[in-house]
């Protein structure tokens, strides 16, 4: 199941190596033939195509950009994935010592079953009651299960084995001990039914309704994808544009007939390509290391991510395009980005916020990104189910790009 994650990761790494190492050499050996077309039918699109191609290529040549674009989000994934306990998910397990004082066949079989169960982690060192107590005192085990000498023997006047297992626990692990007792009682109930067929007129059966219940990692992952999109889409242009203005590179481009929309579109295309690669690596690691279960359709996820990148990139284009220098760009970006990151549920889920705050933050541009990712990736929804998120993103895209085009300055 998580092999797919490894394969995805390997595929992406191979692709990266290919574009950084192999492709340039192939090109050097076979220089592109001079094709001279003085008149091109769709000049505007040719312009956009060349600009986005060279933009993307430049990213993969720049080690610093690669670090911040690809490795940096991964570090966050490991840090926050580790905190949210993604690898364990909702599997509760108990560290127990098993003291089997009985020699009955049933007791042997029962203790063997315990050792194969996922719920119990048997501490093999604790073989006597004394060592088990010592380990409980040091919190190395949560509880000790004692099977007494008469456990599992057939008592006189009965035709089935019986016994009473004891669960010993210390004061500092009361809840673990009690839960363990309940778990064992449940186990015995099933066993009992096999030996004594008594009618049970009233029973209660617990049933898990939603197989795909969300773990905290699912929330963390959607938030981290959002964070990564913010990093690429906002901090990218905010850092680069003022530098381009300072060196007069944008001004130089302005002496050519290049249009703002052509420049924006090419930036969009290259950021979408870079973003998809970066996010694909995050997916691969999340699947391989943190057991993320992707139940949604990858194509739909990719389409939604591209849309999200374009929307969020607009904020970066607006800030970077407006700012004359980094002294203007950095504070403005921080004022906008940091509240948005926290209020949109990047690092902790929005449902933990007070309701009035939830209803406000629902409309932030990053919220539909994070919600949409979670709905598609972990809840198996389709693009047709997340119309609200797409609608919100659409409205924001119009607003953001309207502003970005209005405030853009070439120098």
């Amino acid at each position, binding site marked *: 199941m998580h092999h797919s994650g490894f394969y995805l990761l390997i595929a992406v790494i191979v692709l990266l190596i290919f574009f950084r190492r192999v492709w340039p050499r192939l090109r050097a050996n076979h220089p592109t033939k001079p*094709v001279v077309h003085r008149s091109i039918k769709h*000049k505007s699109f040719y312009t956009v195509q*060349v*600009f986005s191609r060279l933009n993307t290529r430049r990213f993969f040549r*720049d080690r610093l950009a690669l670090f911040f674009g690809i490795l940096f989000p991964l570090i966050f994934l490991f840090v926050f994935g580790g905190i949210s306990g993604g690898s364990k998910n909702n599997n509760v397990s108990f560290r127990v010592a098993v003291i089997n004082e009985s020699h009955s066949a049933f007791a042997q079989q029962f203790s063997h079953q315990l050792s194969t169960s996922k719920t119990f982690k048997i501490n093999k060192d604790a073989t006597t009651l004394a060592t088990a107590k010592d380990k409980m005192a040091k919190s190395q085990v949560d509880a000790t299960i004692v099977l007494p000498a008469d456990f599992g023997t057939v008592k006189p006047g009965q035709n089935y084995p019986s016994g009473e297992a004891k669960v010993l626990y210390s004061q500092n692990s009361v809840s673990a001990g009690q839960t363990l007792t309940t778990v064992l009682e449940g186990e015995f109930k099933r066993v009992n039914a096999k030996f004594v067929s008594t009618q049970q007129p009233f029973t209660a059966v617990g049933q898990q309704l939603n197989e795909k219940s969300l773990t905290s990692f699912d929330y963390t992952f959607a938030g981290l994808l959002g964070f990564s999109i913010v990093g690429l889409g906002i901090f990218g242009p905010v850092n680069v544009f003022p530098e*381009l203005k300072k060196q*007069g590179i944008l*001004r130089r481009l302005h*002496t050519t*007939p290049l249009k703002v929309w052509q420049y924006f579109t090419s930036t969009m295309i290259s950021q979408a390509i870079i973003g998809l690669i970066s996010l694909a690596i995050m997916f691969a690691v999340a699947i391989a290391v943190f057991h993320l279960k992707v139940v949604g359709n990858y194509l739909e996820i990719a389409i939604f991510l591209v849309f999200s990148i374009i929307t969020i990139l607009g904020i970066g284009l607006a800030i970077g395009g407006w700012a004359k220098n980094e002294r203007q760009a950095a504070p403005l970006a921080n004022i906008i980005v940091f509240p948005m990151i926290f209020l949109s549920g990047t690092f902790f889920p929005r449902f933990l916020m007070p309701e009035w705050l939830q209803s406000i933050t629902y409309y932030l541009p990053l919220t539909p990104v994070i919600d949409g990712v979670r709905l598609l990736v972990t809840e198996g929804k389709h693009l047709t189910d997340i119309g609200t998120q797409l609608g919100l993103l659409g409205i924001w895209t119009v607003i953001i790009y309207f502003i970005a085009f209005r405030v853009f300055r070439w120098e």
Partner: protein
Amino acid sequence: MSEVILKVKDLRKVYDGKPAVDGINFEVKKGEIFGILGPNGAGKTTTLEMIETMREIDGGSITVDGLDVASQPNEVKATIGVQPQSPAFQDKTRLSEIIELFAAAYGENVDPMEFLNDVKLGEKANAYVEQLSGGQKQRLSIAAALVHSPKLFFMDEPTTGLDPQARRNLWDLTREVRDKGVTVIMTTHYMDEAEILCDRVAVMDNGKIIAIDTPKNLIQQLLKRGFKKEQQVEQANLEDVFIDLTGKALRD
């Protein structure tokens, strides 16, 4: 009579109530190398920027090859090539890609090698721009400004900061560009450069053109007014010595 490619009429630019360009008039003929001279703050750069469509025109009009700059900026942009004072390019970009990029900005697909060879950078086609020297960057910048075969080419202080060899090379390049039929308009602070290179020069001060003629005529007019240099003119100067000692070959 040669054709007029640039016509500037009553051109005005006002900054904070002060006239930076104060109603200037001049014409540039096709195939000329035209110099605009003057001290800092005279209005040279502002004038150039208005012609290049980069600054709003506050008064008067500019016509480039029959196109009105104020109302047809995009057509004018496609007709002119601009070489900025300090050329800069985004790093991690190969020289051939710079040419490709600039051609694409004009919607054209060209052979980068052709343009790089013209400025003697063919061997460096696959190098990154950050590996170039100052003189090489200037040459790349010129190549990039010519990808769309402009009719009018602007150079803003092209030789500032270059060594004598690179300067001489740039003069040759400028003449080559002119010989291809491109009209060149340049600013410079080096009078020897203007004297050697320019067919005609305009001298600006305080936003006004105070003289416009060929360098030779301007010198003659000064001499007629009875001007005499205090020192005796030597037959060679220190730059001649420098070139004689170090040779004319380009170093970069």
